[in-house]
């Protein structure tokens, strides 16, 4: 079994709040420099930058788990990851059909750009990606799992856009594969306040919006290799696989 250094929550230039330095090339350079084996690409409500990052990552020997950070109707941020790009595209259709027609104001929120490997702008997303989609957390969870994806409520310890800030506590019957904690609290300190969550799987990630923050908070995944199914097993602590956060 190998141990992989993993940062599963990284934004790109596609997220309005993402720095313009977060091009696929810069993300991979920084991840490589910090010896990160696997990165998750999770822009707000869009998966459209995942492919290019994946292409660049392959050249550097880094694995990409392609995903997204969904804003549910309750304004809970949730990470979702999918095994193939075809499935990712199916989820993109779902996102597109539930994202409200509120246009981005680049002066207020920043640019939402899809770029190619050479950092040329391919297109600009006109709709504001940080809006809440019109689906509730249970509907998003069900959709992700119907596509064989992985569903992880993001930064649940944070006072903004986290599961606990929005919904008061973690719904006991929520079918999450793991819960993400931000750098602001240790896993131990978090669990001392929420002892009911002992035994759940946690991940830690950077939620980086600028290159230097990539990898500043990370998870170790004990797995045979970086295949998506190994990731699934690690989150379930199945067959010796494990997520260490």
């Amino acid at each position, binding site marked *: 079994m190998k141990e992989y250094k993993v940062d599963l929550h990284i934004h790109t230039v596609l997220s309005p709040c993402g720095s313009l330095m977060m091009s696929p090339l810069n993300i991979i350079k920084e991840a490589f420099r910090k010896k990160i084996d696997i990165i998750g690409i999770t822009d707000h409500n869009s998966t459209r930058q995942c492919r290019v990052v994946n292409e660049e990552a392959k050249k550097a020997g880094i694995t990409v788990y392609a995903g997204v950070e969904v804003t549910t109707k*309750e304004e809970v941020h949730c990470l979702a990851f999918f095994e193939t790009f075809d499935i990712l595209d199916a989820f993109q259709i779902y996102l597109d059909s539930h994202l409200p027609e509120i246009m981005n104001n680049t002066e207020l929120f920043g640019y939402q750009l899809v770029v190619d490997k050479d950092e040329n702008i391919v297109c600009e997303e006109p709709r504001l990606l940080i809006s809440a989609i019109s689906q509730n*957390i*249970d509907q998003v969870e069900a959709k992700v799992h119907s596509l064989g994806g992985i569903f992880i409520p993001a930064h649940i310890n944070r*006072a903004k856009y986290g599961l606990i*800030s*929005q*919904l*008061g*506590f973690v719904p006991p019957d929520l079918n999450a594969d793991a819960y993400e904690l931000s750098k602001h609290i240790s896993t131990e300190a978090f669990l001392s306040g929420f002892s009911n969550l002992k035994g759940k799987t946690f991940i830690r990630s950077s939620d980086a919006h600028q290159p230097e923050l990539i990898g500043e908070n990370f998870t170790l995944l004990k797995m045979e290799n970086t295949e998506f199914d190994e990731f699934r097993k690690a989150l379930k602590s199945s067959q010796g696989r494990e997520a260490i956060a």
Partner: protein
Amino acid sequence: MNVKEVAEKLGLKVISGENGLDREVKGGYVSDLLSDVMGSANAGELWITLQTHKNVMAIASLKDLAAIILVKGFEPDPDMEEQSNAEDIPVLNSDLDTFTITGRLFQLLNP
């Protein structure tokens, strides 16, 4: 004043939890962050929100709130409605927005 009288005077629709309509209303609280309500709402208050997740009922029960008012015609999620009936805490709704319904409730409770 009880929940039933408030509902009648403000023209609210009773969606669920009818058995709790005689609960006494001691004030109101307005927030869409459930963590905030958990920390700051007081027993007997009417909670005005747009959240329709079942956790709303858990917090209403925990804080012993009088009832929930959903704004802008929002309907509770099915499991929220079930919980409302199980806990006898009414869920009401209004087509008005939060600002307007809150103003009217405030006037009603502070004549």
